[in-house]
């Protein structure tokens, strides 16, 4: 870009375009209580649905008696699998090529599974009726451990009995789902066999839940007069929901309108299609009136969209000097009762093959075995791209373990293995092409900012003081350097249910020079209405304040695959920039006509086209917009609109360097975060204020996961963490202030060089917090301890290491 003079800079600043910490346009309604979330939608005659759920994790359903419930005043219907079967809706396909029960068909496979759907005049009557539905169960043996599942004679999925081929290849056992392999097995084993040093560790990334503050829900309204179905709901991918609804219901797609209103956080929870949505739709079709279904918090935690539950066994080899030579990873992936992971079709373990991380590892192999257990289905990407947090956690723990094995400083070990700046675009051993990066610069900046050497010295002094009995607090220095893979993705290898993962933007410029743009994505708090207008402002020279952004209504927005996996900026953001460039190209023709010069005699100048060499002769975008509607221009259609569907040539690869300094009281297990420094490189920065906010939020969700948040089961398959009493969500009291920083390495293939940032802090944060805890005990012989590092578990670690003796 050319340097702008002062006058041009002033005009550019007025646009509030790229790089401006523009205040959010969404905030006026949210701060005044005027958001419009799904539970705020009310329609005349609307009924309320509620589920009868299984108290057992594995049981045969012997009978369901709905008589008493139906007899209750105000109850309109009680649906069971038998009612859905004639419509072929008692089961539904999952995004992962499996199928799942909508309502219990003969048996239940996890605690909280949907058994019957009660429809009543209000929520209270529905809740009463749920209690009146009599279900007779016969308990079956429960398996909550995936390793046990692969040994057990108990067949969890009787519907798949005898099927040796699944959606992703052969099944080795009746509770096995798939094996997914990437990389070179033999070559990796050879490298490991010949290596000077090999470090091995099993790293469990526990089951947790995205848990947005707003639970999932929907309002379905079947208009029998016009044959139109409208569904409002908590959908991170409304267009895909429309397609799925059409395929499942047989209603033609043009007769279905899906709307995502304001969404109270998603974090992956609202990508999937849940039985509640299907039942609300069926209930509306059956009753002919709108039906609302809103899950409560316990239902949300028990039944919709868990995340993680990966048992990752790694071997990493290196020379004595610390140069990594090979990486071997095997994952046993607990998918619960149905394989309902929300990954691109060809990636049953998501992008777990980004597990070579930020390091130049010449040889690697990854195998993932998916397994059924008696737990809830899900496997969504909780604030990360598909399984990327698992991959980052794995490699960042393996690096730490290798550092212990080598008796090396973990920061130095990272430095000597980073992919070098000149190696980009870099082909990883597990098949990705990293677009751009400058890891050494970021790392050096981070270590300097925290005075890394000083921290290590202080830590060593603390260990000595501890040994002398002068303190009971240890100090951990947590490091992480992560590379994300986001912005799925190229249609050639990324699709969901066959729909290519492109995204879209459609722009209309109004005659008076303001605009509306609609996208295929949907904000859940990321501030799209603010930032996409900024992208466009810089492209077309209309102030962001004069551009309305709309998303989420499938009747008006162009088709897109939605918002998750940090794909909005990399994909829809690119579509926005390119649609803007189409507008500009047409505007140039109009300006040329108005100025009576050739198109090529004009140049773009912030918000106008100027005749080259004659700066006093120009037409502003506002003037051009008006001309587009009121002049008959030969060879140019009236109007000023454009649409762009963007198929990205590659993913983007944001990265970052994080350092956490933690003090741990060995007698109570209480950890205190003294400092957290986060350097993020997300390429071109659209709105620094929003980026910083995303980083704060992602780090806090990382803190939660690393230090206590889990979905835990007992041996009977009972969910032990079904409310906020047990499921850890940090409050303001438990969260530190974070120091944010950045470098800027633009993506070479993205139209504006942006990479996406929303999930980076979570991906980098989880290993950073965990590494801090592990590091605090390194001097006392600890290699690895599993998350979540709550006070009790930290105390146990200290105890096991003899620190209470």
């Amino acid at each position, binding site marked *: 870009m050319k340097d702008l003079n002062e006058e041009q800079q002033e005009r550019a600043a007025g646009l509030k375009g790229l790089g401006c910490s523009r205040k959010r346009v969404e905030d006026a309604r949210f*701060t005044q209580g005027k958001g419009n*979330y799904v539970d705020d939608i009310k329609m005349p005659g609307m009924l309320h649905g509620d589920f009868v759920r299984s108290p057992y994790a594995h049981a045969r359903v012997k009978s369901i008696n709905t008589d008493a419930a139906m007899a209750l005043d105000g109850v309109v219907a009680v649906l069971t699998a038998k009612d859905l079967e004639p419509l072929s809706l008692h089961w539904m396909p999952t995004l992962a090529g499996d199928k799942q029960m909508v309502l219990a068909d003969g048996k239940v496979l996890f605690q909280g599974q949907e058994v019957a759907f009660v429809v009543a005049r209000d929520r209270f009557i529905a809740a009463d009726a749920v209690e009146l539905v009599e279900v007779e169960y016969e308990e079956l043996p429960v398996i909550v451990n995936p390793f046990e599942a692969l040994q057990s004679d108990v067949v969890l999925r009787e519907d798949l009995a005898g099927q040796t081929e699944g959606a992703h290849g052969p099944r080795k056992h009746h509770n096995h789902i798939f094996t997914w392999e990437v990389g070179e097995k033999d070559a990796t084993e050879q490298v490991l066999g010949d290596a000077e040093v090999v470090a091995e560790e099993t790293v469990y990334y526990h089951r947790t839940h995205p848990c947005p503050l707003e639970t999932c829900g929907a309002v379905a309204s079947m208009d029998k007069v016009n044959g139109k179905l409208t569904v409002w709901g908590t959908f991170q991918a409304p267009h895909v929901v429309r397609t799925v609804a059409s395929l499942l219901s047989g209603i033609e797609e043009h007769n279905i309108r899906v709307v995502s209103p304001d969404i109270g956080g998603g974090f992956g929870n609202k990508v999937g299609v849940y039985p509640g949505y299907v039942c609300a739709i069926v209930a509306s079709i059956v009753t002919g009136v709108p039906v609302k279904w809103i899950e409560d918090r316990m239902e949300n935690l028990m039944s919709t969209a868990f995340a993680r539950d990966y048992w990752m066994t790694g071997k990493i080899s290196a020379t004595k000097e610390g140069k990594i030579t090979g990486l071997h990873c095997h994952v046993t992936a607990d998918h619960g009762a149905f394989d309902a992971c929300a990954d691109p079709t060809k990636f049953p373990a998501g992008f777990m093959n980004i597990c070579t991380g930020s390091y130049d590892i010449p040889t690697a192999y990854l195998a993932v075995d998916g397994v059924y257990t008696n737990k809830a289905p899900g496997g969504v990407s909780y604030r990360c791209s598909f399984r990327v947090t698992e991959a980052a956690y794995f490699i960042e723990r393996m690096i730490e373990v290798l550092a212990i094995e080598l008796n090396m400083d973990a920061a130095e070990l990272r430095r000597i293995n980073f992919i070098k700046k000149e190696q980009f675009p870099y082909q990883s051993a597990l098949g990705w092409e990293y677009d751009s990066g400058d890891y050494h610069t970021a790392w050096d900046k981070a270590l300097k900012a925290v005075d890394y050497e000083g921290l290590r010295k202080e830590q060593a002094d603390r260990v000595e003081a501890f040994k002398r009995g002068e303190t009971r607090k240890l100090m951990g220095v947590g490091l992480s350097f992560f590379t994300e893979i986001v912005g799925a993705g190229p249609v050639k290898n990324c699709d969901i249910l066959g729909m290519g993962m492109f995204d879209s933007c459609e722009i209309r410029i109004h005659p008076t020079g303001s605009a509306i743009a609609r996208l295929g994505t949907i904000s859940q708090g990321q501030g799209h209405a603010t930032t996409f207008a900024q992208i466009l402002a810089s492209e077309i020279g209309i102030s962001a304040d004069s551009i309305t952004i709309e998303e989420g209504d499938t009747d008006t927005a162009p088709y897109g695959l939605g918002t998750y996996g940090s794909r909005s900026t990399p994909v829809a953001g690119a579509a926005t920039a390119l649609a803007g460039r189409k507008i500009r190209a047409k505007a140039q023709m109009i300006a040329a006509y108005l100025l009576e010069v050739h198109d090529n005699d004009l140049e773009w100048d912030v918000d106008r086209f100027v005749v080259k060499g004659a700066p006093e002769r120009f037409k502003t975008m506002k003037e051009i917009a008006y001309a587009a509607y009121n002049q008959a221009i030969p060879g140019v259609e009236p109007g000023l609109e454009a649409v762009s569907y963007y198929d990205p040539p590659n993913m983007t690869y944001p990265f970052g360097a994080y350092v956490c300094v933690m003090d741990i009281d060995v007698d109570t297990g209480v950890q205190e975060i003294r400092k957290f420094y986060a350097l993020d490189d997300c390429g071109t920065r659209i709105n620094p204020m929003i980026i910083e906010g995303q980083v704060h939020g992602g780090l806090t969700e990382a803190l939660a996961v690393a230090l206590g948040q889990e979905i835990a089961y007992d041996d009977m398959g009972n969910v032990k963490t079904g409310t906020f009493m047990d499921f850890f969500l940090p*409050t303001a009291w438990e969260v530190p202030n974070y120091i944010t920083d950045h470098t800027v390495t633009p993506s070479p293939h993205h139209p504006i060089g942006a990479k996406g940032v929303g999930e980076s802090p979570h991906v980098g944060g989880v290993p950073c917090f965990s590494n801090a805890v592990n590091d605090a005990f390194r001097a006392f012989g600890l290699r690895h301890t599993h998350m979540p590092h709550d006070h009790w578990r930290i105390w146990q670690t200290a105890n096991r290491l003899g620190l209470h003796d």
Partner: protein
Amino acid sequence: MSNKMHIKMTVNGKAEEFLAEPRELLIYTLRERLNVTGPHIGCETSHCGACTVTLNGKSVKACTLFVAQADGAELTTIEGLGTPDSLHVLQEAFREHHGLQCGYCTPGMITRASKLLEENPTPTEEEVRFGMAGNMCRCTGYQNIVKSILAAAAEMNAAKEAAQ
């Protein structure tokens, strides 16, 4: 039905009178009966604070109060704090300092913060963090919420001083 109670309450300065089952939860009274949808439901166990309203001068969580307990009460919700033409200082501050993202916790958060600043007009950061610990946010990591509240406190105090 015979078990309905005659309830009176004032919500954001407006007198309301209706018959309700005593078990009706206050949050549903507000949201469904009175169409006051600013307060939200996040957990129904008093943990998250999305439903926070002010009842007779105290911050309460409307999801775990029966409407019967609010009979005769004076209630303020986010809708009663400011108007589009004259926003509450906190409403301005949350926007200015990016103290919200998805907006779901925001009505409860601001309503609670308004009480906090009445209880303690000059809080330290620690006091803000402690005083807001009953309100959960999944998006912001609280850093900018705390910043917003401290900024609002400073502004309110400056305005008070200027008026004296």
